């Protein structure tokens, strides 16, 4: 079990490394139109014909620090905009994002030259149609709401309890690094069916594969880290496959291996990689952003203290306010007009969930954290056939377990007055550090 003290040099180093990697990942993912594997001819043409003064002025470092003022400008002035530093058209209005999600035949998940596919193999995240559905259906049964409630929730509670026992006597911790990250890691390992893997393994695997997915600069060290992770994952998956073929259990790998139409082993390995790459930082970031929001909104804290069922509203509002996946890619399959712009086949799209969730056309005072909003659906889980497969797992582990247990077990929990809480990112956004103290 992990139980880093707040002054642990390893932890401090881990935090810095993670932050740097997140920065790097977003920079590499988006900045490299030259010397990259992207289709530079289309890019050049688009850049000269479509980039405007507004979009030419957008800088990645600003998007990373705080994307929301830029998103607002884009929504108001160019809701579908060619943004050179992003190397894509960014779609920022709620209505356009929802419409696009309802038309998966036009906006495909399969992307030419996808580095995520290079790292992970052909996963369901980048498949469409029946092929996508087959993989998804095989993995789905353990992730359905009743199974989550009856089987996984007690597992999540035991994991949260173990982590809290490790540091609750200390009176201080980084809620991001000491709680949210390791909890998301071990919950995910349990749901997948991976045993004998550490929280560190899971977090390193996730980070290194995501870095590989953004390695447009072709940095060999990044490939080497990603390759090492994928080999380790393959070994862990193969061990699990041997076990669950002999004795099926409630896990996702067991469900896939023993499905009526099972994906082949290669597909199972690839899909486990996409679950590790994509199923860890979202619960981690929603736990830490929601915690930060409650710590900075006393009225919300009073409300959840009086009525624990309100944690669900806290969770949903937290992922509307700061969507953990701020942007995801799509590729246009047939000519289409969106937001007044004609998009040609092959055009790359960045679907900005983080912007749609703050569209003032739909959400009043969108920059405020408010758990009493009218019941308008946010789009943090995406939509259509790729609607987040982990939605029910996320709701249980964050809204029913992590947040209530954290505030119940750490009396007087508050932000550490001496160490700054920080947030960053726009492709993926969340806390970078959440130092907190409580009464011992």
């Amino acid at each position, binding site marked *: 079990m992990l139980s880093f003290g707040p002054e642990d040099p390893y932890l401090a180093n881990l935090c810095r490394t993670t932050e740097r990697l997140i920065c790097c990942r977003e920079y590499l993912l988006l900045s490299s139109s030259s010397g990259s594997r992207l289709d530079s001819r289309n890019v050049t043409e688009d850049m000269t014909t479509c980039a405007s003064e507004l979009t030419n002025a957008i800088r990645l470092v600003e998007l990373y620090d705080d994307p929301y003022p830029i998103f607002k400008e884009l929504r108001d002035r160019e809701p579908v905009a060619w943004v050179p530093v992003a190397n894509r058209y960014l779609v920022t209005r709620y209505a356009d994002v929802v419409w696009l999600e309802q038309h998966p035949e036009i906006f495909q998940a399969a992307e030419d030259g996808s580095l995520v596919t290079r790292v992970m193999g052909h996963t369901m995240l980048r498949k469409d149609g029946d092929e996508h559905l087959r993989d998804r259906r095989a993995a789905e049964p353990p992730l359905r709401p009743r199974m989550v409630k009856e089987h996984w929730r007690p597992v999540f509670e035991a994991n949260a309890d173990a982590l809290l026992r490790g540091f609750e006597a200390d009176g201080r911790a980084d809620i991001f690094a000491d709680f949210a990250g390791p909890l998301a890691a071990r919950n995910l390992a349990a749901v997948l069916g991976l045993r004998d893997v550490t929280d560190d393994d899971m977090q390193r695997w996730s980070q290194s594969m995501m870095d590989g997915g953004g390695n447009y600069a072709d940095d060999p060290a990044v490939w080497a880290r990603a390759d090492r992770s994928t080999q380790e994952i393959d070994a862990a998956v193969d061990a699990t496959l041997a076990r669950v073929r002999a004795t099926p259990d409630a896990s996702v790998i067991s469900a896939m291996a023993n499905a009526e139409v099972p994906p082949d082993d290669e597909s199972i390995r690839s899909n486990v990689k996409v679950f590790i790459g994509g199923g860890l930082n979202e619960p981690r970031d929603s736990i830490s952003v929601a915690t930060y929001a409650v710590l900075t909104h006393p009225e919300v804290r009073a409300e959840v203290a009086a009525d624990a069922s309100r944690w669900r509203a806290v969770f949903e509002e937290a992922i509307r306010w700061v969507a953990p996946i701020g942007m995801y890619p799509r590729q246009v399959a047939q000519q289409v007009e969106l937001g007044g712009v004609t998009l040609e086949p092959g055009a790359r799209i960045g679907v900005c969930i983080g912007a749609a969730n703050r569209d003032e056309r739909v959400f009043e005072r969108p920059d405020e954290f408010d758990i009493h909003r009218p*019941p308008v659906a946010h789009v943090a889980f995406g939509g*259509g056939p790729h609607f987040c497969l982990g939605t029910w797992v996320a709701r249980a582990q964050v809204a029913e377990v992590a947040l209530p247990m954290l505030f119940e077990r750490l009396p007087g929990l508050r932000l550490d007055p001496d160490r700054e809480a920080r947030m960053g990112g726009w492709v993926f956004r969340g806390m970078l550090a959440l130092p907190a103290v409580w009464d011992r």
Partner: protein
Amino acid sequence: MPKIRFVRADGSVTVVDADVGQSIMQVAVGNGIDGIVGECGGSRMCATCHVHVDLSGVGGVPVVSEDEDELLDFAASPRSELSRLSCQLPVSEEMDGITVALPERQT
């Protein structure tokens, strides 16, 4: 074209012409009926197209599957005897004139 009458929780009514074969969820979403979300696009995973509809007397209506039954238990507004996921209900000529009541919230 069969007409479907959507009644929101606040009592407001919208009547739309529905394409036979589309699901009631698709008809609602395509006609901008707020009150039906349909987040997962009909893949039986989200419970955000929950409706209350009396389909007795309408032939050929699919029975409630195990997945639908499960999701209705997890819908954001309380389940009733008439609860269905509208993504599981393909529009037929026989549905002409039916009333589909929308719950207070879907999320």
